[in-house]
């Protein structure tokens, strides 16, 4: 049989049962629309979450020196352990699982002056790696602190985007301008590109000032960094990175490397893993709801195909008398179900895509992110609709094909 023959039959059935067909198709339409929207919003939320976490940086450990809580090799507990910049250098040299590392000196309430704008700000002394680790990306035409700044103890600084706007409200590039930090002139070499950040340990990056660690030490003669920021290699877990740092420092300062209290560590990978699981579960839940909706639609389609079968029994009988094989009857029913499902599915997908397209204009993305559809969801929906159509169509089709020609013709 030619495809157009099936298609023609389909439109004839359609016109015979306009309302029922429309409502059935609506079931599939609605189901598809729900799945796509739920998935897309789930994806949007997840991406927003990931983006926000990137504000802190990926695979970041923040380490604070602390007090030993275990006795070790005859040494009492309660000893204060301090890290120097040399210790950070040894971590950089020795640790296998640490990709990047930087000390971080922090000073709060430093008077920062630019023209008439005088405020107390936070100043951080860091290494060049710090910028890459913490995703402090300089805007075009600017840079982060580099090794030469460290080596030559240059008085240069990089500032957060909000601070830049505050200091230069009339626009104009802050790059190359001078700030007075505690009365000392610093040249602004970089401005951080705006970013989302959902967690922090010393305030948002948007308001900070970063200067070379060497310059910082000459200004405030602070021998110990407040904390160390390390980025572990992607293949390692946070725990592995932590214990490696512990063992390097434990050798030098002679504390128990298994002492959980000596070094305070904030393992951000743990949040990431937690959030990832949470969002996987959440998205699975949403898609599950969508699938259930779609199944409801499929039951509707199956139902209408039974109605079609009732109405077409005689016609099937005629066709059987004229030589139709079982496979023809099955194909006709299945292809109709497929078409019905695919049309409903396609419209549902289009409608969902439309909503997703216009959604950003509502200005809600700060709360729920930007919903996204991707190829995966497209393929998944297509496969799912295929299964649904097959499931909905196969039972009426088989029943139709099992009709005896005589019964179908109702000859007696």
């Amino acid at each position, binding site marked *: *049989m*030619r495809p157009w*023959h099936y298609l023609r039959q389909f439109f*004839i059935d359609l016109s015979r049962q306009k309302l029922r067909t429309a409502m059935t198709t609506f079931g599939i339409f609605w189901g598809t629309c729900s799945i796509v929207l739920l998935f897309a919003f789930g994806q949007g939320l997840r991406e927003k979450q990931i983006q926000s976490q990137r504000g802190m940086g990926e695979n970041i450990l923040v380490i604070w020196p602390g007090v030993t809580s275990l006795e070790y090799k005859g040494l009492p507990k309660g000893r204060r352990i301090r890290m120097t910049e040399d210790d950070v250098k040894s971590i950089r040299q020795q640790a296998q699982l640490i990709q990047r590392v930087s000390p971080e000196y922090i000073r709060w309430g430093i008077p920062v002056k630019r023209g008439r704008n005088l405020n107390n700000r936070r100043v951080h002394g860091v290494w060049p790696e710090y910028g890459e680790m913490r995703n402090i990306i300089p805007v075009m035409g600017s840079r982060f602190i580099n090794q030469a700044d460290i080596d030559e103890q240059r008085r240069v600084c990089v500032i957060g985007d909000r601070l830049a706007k505050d200091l230069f409200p009339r626009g104009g590039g802050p790059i190359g301008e001078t700030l007075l930090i505690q009365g000392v002139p610093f040249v602004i070499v970089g401005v951080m590109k705006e970013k989302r950040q959902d967690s922090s340990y010393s305030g948002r990056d948007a308001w900070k000032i970063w200067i070379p660690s060497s310059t910082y030490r000459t200004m405030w003669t602070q021998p110990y960094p407040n904390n160390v920021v390390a980025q572990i290699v992607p293949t390692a877990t946070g725990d592995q990175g932590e214990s490696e740092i512990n063992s390097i420092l434990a050798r030098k300062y002679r504390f128990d490397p298994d002492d959980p209290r000596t070094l305070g560590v904030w393992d951000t990978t743990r949040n990431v893993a937690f959030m990832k699981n949470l969002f996987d579960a959440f998205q699975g839940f949403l898609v599950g709801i969508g699938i259930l909706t779609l199944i409801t639609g499929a039951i509707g389609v199956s139902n209408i195909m039974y109605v079609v079968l009732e109405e077409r029994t*005689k*016609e099937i*009988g*005629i*066709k*059987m*008398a*004229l*030589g*139709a*094989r*079982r*496979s*023809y009857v099955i194909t006709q029913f299945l292809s109709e179900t497929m078409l019905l499902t695919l049309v409903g599915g396609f419209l549902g997908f289009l409608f969902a895509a439309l909503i997703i397209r216009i959604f950003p204009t509502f200005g809600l993305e700060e709360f729920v992110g930007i919903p996204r559809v991707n190829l995966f969801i497209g393929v998944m929906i297509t496969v799912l609709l295929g299964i649904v159509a097959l499931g909905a169509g196969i039972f009426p089709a088989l029943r139709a094909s099992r009709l*005896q*020609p*005589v019964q179908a*013709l109702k*000859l*007696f």
Partner: protein
Amino acid sequence: MSAHMIDIVNLVKRYQTGTVSFEALKGVDVQIDRGELVSIVGPSGSGKSTMMNIIGCLDIPTSGKYTLDDQDVTKLTPNQLADIRNRKIGFVFQAFNLLPYATAFENVEVPLLFARVGGRKRKQRILDLLDRVGLADKVNNKPTEMSGGEMQRVAIARALANEPEVILADEPTGNLDSSSGGGIVELFHELWREGKTIVVITHDSALAAQTERIIHIRDGLIEKVTHGNQQGRRAAHVA
């Protein structure tokens, strides 16, 4: 090749409804020659419709042997039966049984589609057939736009589509007025003279009389066989 187009031996058809069993045919022997014009008559409930269903391969017998064109059809699969119906048998029903939404052309096309007759050849064949039954000007009419006689002509054109061996007509004039009915009978006579085997199932003795041979069925058994008033190219067979 046997002289019999249809050879039925000791045919039994039993219907089982729950615990009640009913024998519609109780051991029937019928032979119909190639090129014969035969009628099967009987009152309603006599078993003639069952007979028609079995001859038309729409139903299978409970027991007995049915050979159609030298082929034992009691042993065939559903698909093989479908092909037999498609190629060897042309049905003409009392209620026409045309597809209501399809034009005359499309109705005649259906058996050709099942037989996978290709595009241009198929189109030509349909037009020839409709011309043959005198409906060249109604090609694109739907059943609702035709008279009963015209609808039955479409049905006959459809029955002839794949040049079947046997035309099986079930009360072909039952829904028609006498003049259109007469036209249909005329058409059957023409087809018969061209060499088709035609079996007419009816309870109308006037229609039956216009065949070569009349097989009377009553209560699932053959009651008698009589001559009709048509004389074929060969002597009528009276069993």
